[in-house]
């Protein structure tokens, strides 16, 4: 029960979803996971444990490419888990990097490290016997995967801007503090994975609640003018406001989110709204109470409407703000001015105001693996062996070799070039394209995404070249399903998977990620998508205003209607 007075008018009525039963019965996320780990007959998890391991940062997956083949072989699907680490702000040390590099090579089916849009890394294809050792080795190097999935506050993002070194450091510290503050308090993780003793205490979850949140919850700390973390894809955003280079407080934005369900118009991608400004000292309290308000009023009956964005649309932004203010005990101040001008990463070297050098490496699809002729994974390990700064994973799936002293710059550059980590041939288009993982590992994928993106980009590059726009780009994103990992619902051109080879094409997002695109083509194949893009890029080349981006052009030209208010406009 909530420690705060509840307004019953704001509570969704009806029978609680089965996930609510599951969480309530889980003994604070323990379930019978330990028993399942001993079960040698299946590589998967049984019953509720299948869902509960998500709260511990893992998803049960299988190699979907060979699912039918294995069924014919009378073998169960090739069950394995994907692990998503908790890395607030995406910062990882060279020592940690070398350790995860080795684990990926030795103990995962795919041998890769995946940099994700949640600014962290994932291991894909970890078989059951390796799961516990994985958590233990991560613990040994100071990493965990607590609450990186499930109905909790997940990994907290932070703008990767390495130039404003001091401001970044301050913002990053807040990202870490928010992450820690909102973590589940249960000792389940330590007991199950780290063999820590069960302590006889009455466990409580004062912030998340004993049945945790109604749905996943995503938080960011963003430093304008960069919007690399895509505020409108997140439930809660702290927009850094600085004075004289010093962080003084945050504008708080709530209710962003991109997931939707095909055929269900009560679901839609939605921009975040502004709650107001808060000085630094209230940061944790505000974070906590945006969470507790969502905890108490989020829809626990219909999971498809359970996210913060729907809570706000249901109870109203003002009511939501008032609830938070009452619980924090301090009103929000008016929002301070801020502008986003950029969403991509600055590929290549930049010099920070502290005089250190930072090299942003473009990692296509975030896949760190040794490819033929491009041994990226080995290259990063070689850099990690000599690097004295740290690495920063970006929300665009790239990697920054950060904090390189002048005298080491040449050596790092030489290594990066040697192993194909610097490729001057990457077009702007390629650097501004993104996809989620999808096949073969993601159980939700309906169509290819990551494996398809490189060739799609090549074709779009061809179209741009054809219309004399080779140096231009369109923010292009592909996701295998409508759940939003690849953030296609904030792209200028977004493809969302419907079925193998079939996508919905959405147009009209903008460069900085402040507009949700609108459906242009429904359930079509590549040929139709390329024909449409060819025609539209052709018009854009001729009709565009100065510096007008593709997404703005298609709105102005009336190709698609602008989505201003998602609830009313997106499905209109």
């Amino acid at each position, binding site marked *: 029960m909530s420690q705060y007075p509840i307004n019953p008018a704001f509570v969704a009525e009806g029978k609680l979803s089965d996930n609510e039963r599951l969480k309530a019965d889980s003994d604070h996320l323990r379930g019978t996971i330990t028993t399942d780990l001993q079960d*040698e007959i299946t*590589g998967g998890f049984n019953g509720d444990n299948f869902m509960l391991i998500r709260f511990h940062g893992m998803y049960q997956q299988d190699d979907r490419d060979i699912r039918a083949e294995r069924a014919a072989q*009378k*073998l*169960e699907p090739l069950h394995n888990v994907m692990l998503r680490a908790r890395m607030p702000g995406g910062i990882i040390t060279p020592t940690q990097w070398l350790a995860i590099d080795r684990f990926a090579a030795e103990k995962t089916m795919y041998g890769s490290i995946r940099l994700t849009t949640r600014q962290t890394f994932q291991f894909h294809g970890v078989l059951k016997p390796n799961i516990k050792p994985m958590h233990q080795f991560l613990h040994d190097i100071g990493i965990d995967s607590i609450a990186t999935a499930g109905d909790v506050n997940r990994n907290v993002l932070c703008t990767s801007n390495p130039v404003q070194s001091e401001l970044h450091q301050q913002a990053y510290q807040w990202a870490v503090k928010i992450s820690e503050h909102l973590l589940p308090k249960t000792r389940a993780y330590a007991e199950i994975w780290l063999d820590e003793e069960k302590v006889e205490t009455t466990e409580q979850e004062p912030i998340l609640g004993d049945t945790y949140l109604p749905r996943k919850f995503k938080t960011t700390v963003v430093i304008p003018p960069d919007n690399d973390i895509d505020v409108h894809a997140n439930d809660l955003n702290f927009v850094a406001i600085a004075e004289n280079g010093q962080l003084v407080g945050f504008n708080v934005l709530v209710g962003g989110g991109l997931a939707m369900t095909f055929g269900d118009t009560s679901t839609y991608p939605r921009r975040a709204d502004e709650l107001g400004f808060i000085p630094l000292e209230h940061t944790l309290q505000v974070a906590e109470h945006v969470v507790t308000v969502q905890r108490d009023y989020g829809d626990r009956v219909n999971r498809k409407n359970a996210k913060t964005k729907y809570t706000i649309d249901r109870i109203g932004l003002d009511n939501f703000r008032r609830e938070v203010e009452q619980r924090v005990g301090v009103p929000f101040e008016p929002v301070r001015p801020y502008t986003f001008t950029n969403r991509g990463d600055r590929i290549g070297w930049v010099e920070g105001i502290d005089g250190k050098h930072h090299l942003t490496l473009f990692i296509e699809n975030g896949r760190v693996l040794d490819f033929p002729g491009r041994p990226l994974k080995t290259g990063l390990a070689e850099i990690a062996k000599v690097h004295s700064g740290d690495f920063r994973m970006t929300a665009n799936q790239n990697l920054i070799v950060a904090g390189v002293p002048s005298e080491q710059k040449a050596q790092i550059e030489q290594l990066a070039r040697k192993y194909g980590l610097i490729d001057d041939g990457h077009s702007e288009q390629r650097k501004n394209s993104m996809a989620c993982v999808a096949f073969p590992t993601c159980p939700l994928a309906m169509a290819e995404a990551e494996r398809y993106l490189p060739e799609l980009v090549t074709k779009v590059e061809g179209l741009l070249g054809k219309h004399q726009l080779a140096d231009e780009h369109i923010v292009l994103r592909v996701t295998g399903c409508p759940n939003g990992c690849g953030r296609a619902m904030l792209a200028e051109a977004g493809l969302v998977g419907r079925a193998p080879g079939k996508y919905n094409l959405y147009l009209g997002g903008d460069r900085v990620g402040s507009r949700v695109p609108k459906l242009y083509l429904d359930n079509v194949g590549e040929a139709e998508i390329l024909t449409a893009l060819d025609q539209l890029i052709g018009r854009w080349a001729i009709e565009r205003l100065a510096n007008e981006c593709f997404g703005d052009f298609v709105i102005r030209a009336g190709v698609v209607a602008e989505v201003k208010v998602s609830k009313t406009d997106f499905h209109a």
Partner: protein
Amino acid sequence: MLLSSLVAQASPLTEQQVQQLQGLVSQLNPIQQAWVSGYLAASAQLAGGALPQQAAASAAPAATLTILYGSQTGNARHVAEQLAAQAKAKQWAVNLLDMADYKANQLKNEQFLTIVTSTYGEGEPPENAEAFYKFLFSKKAPKLPQLKYAVLGLGDTSYEFFCKTAQDFDQRLAELGATALQGRQDLDVDYESAASSWNQALIEVLEPEFKESAAPASGAQVIAWPGQTAAAASSYNKQQPFAAELYTNQKITGRDSSKDVRHIEISLAGSDLSYQPGDALGVYFDNDPALVRELLQITAIASTAPVRLGEQRLTIAEALTSQLELTQSYPAFVDKYAAAIGSEALQALAADKTALRDYLALRQIIDIVREHPGMPSAQQLVDALRKQQPRLYSIASSQTEVEDEVHLTVGVVRYDAFGSTHLGGASGFLAERLAEGDTVRVFVEKNDNFRLPVNDDTPIIMVGPGTGIAPFRAFLQEREQRGASGDNWLFFGNPHFTQDFLYQVELQRYLKQGLLTRLDVAFSRDQAEKIYVQHKLLKQGSDVFAWLERGAHLYICGDGNRMAKDVHQALLAIIQQHGGKSPEQAEQYLDELKQAKRYQKDVY
């Protein structure tokens, strides 16, 4: 039919008992008769040595020819049956027995004994001969001055200990004072005609002994011993296989497995073949046409060259394709081929038996011919090769579930050596060359030494790593269909969990349904130290012993060279530890299980 012509003189029964038995039998249908015979056999064994020897001896005044077979694949049984039939035709009293069913303490009363036996592995007796062999070589073995005997050995000259068990029996019976009726013969895999001759010769030797004591002319007295009664005689057999249709050929190991195991489904529709869980399917196969072509090319023989094969006249291509052995090599081929092509190098190799065995270990016929090309005549080549022997596969299905299908679990023999890929004869045929819908010649080889308990309530423990799981799939199907309430515990093992968990989905279902009470798996190469089924047995030792104590039957199927021995040792350790027994007592415990047919093996 048999019992209706049974007479007291030829059996251990009194005249009154014979009448009572005949009265009962006349009311029974064949299935009931089969059940009764199994029931009586089981109760006789449970009664231990309670079979009254005196009565047995005194009630059999007429000379009886006792024929015992020790058989792994059924060949020795067939030869023994043939001998029994010949003797029966002469109206002699014949006692034909599986060696496992023979009461060894009756030996001192025997007058005429014939043993037909194969040899297993490294010179060991076949499974069903183990107990008798042990007895004969123990201190308990009686002097046998009254006994006249003959021993016939069946074997394979490519093995080092060719026909060793037959030699051991022969030598030991002589040591115990028995007299040989005729000389022992050790026959290679193409034993058929030589075995017939040996049988015929033996009948002739015995003729004078039996002339006077021949039973009255009341018909045959071959006593079909209980336990052999199961499969009704079919018109299809080893000599006349059924041309069956291949339904399914499905690989059941994962794409990254080091093993290629196939689930094979064959239709028996249109035949009268039937089988029971525990039986094997004999499979004839065609050799790889590419292999035949290459062989003819190297030896410069036209594929249409006529050859003789016994009574048959056919082309050499036909003979090589479907009649002769091309995949398993053996010493006799080297001898004959070397002579035919006049190769001194090969002749020298053939003279050194140890070197020859090493040489033949991985080589198929084609490798030898490639390395030593020559030009034998078509007939010489045919004469150098031996007749194809059908391969036996433990049946992996129960007819109660699959009706007129038969399922196999076939490990494909495939290896690279001497610059080419080698395939097993039958496994290569089934897995690679036979298309679904094609025909394969098959027959049922029954195995009464591998049977589910008659009582459905009896718990069973099954140890079947690798393709050894096959008969247990049949057992589980059978028990599910019968609604058998007995507990079922399976131990399975293979190299890797993700790739080699044969029938994983089916077993998971059985476990969920409760048909499988327990399932313990050992995946040897999923961790640093190798874990095999015997380790899993040891780990569960206390429960294993408890199951045995409450009457569980124990079955082992699979590799006999290592696994079955390691499992046996593990069982001894378990019985010692959890039963508080000495090593000798543990041995005895297992011996008793074996005697009671509660410890059965199907190993290869």
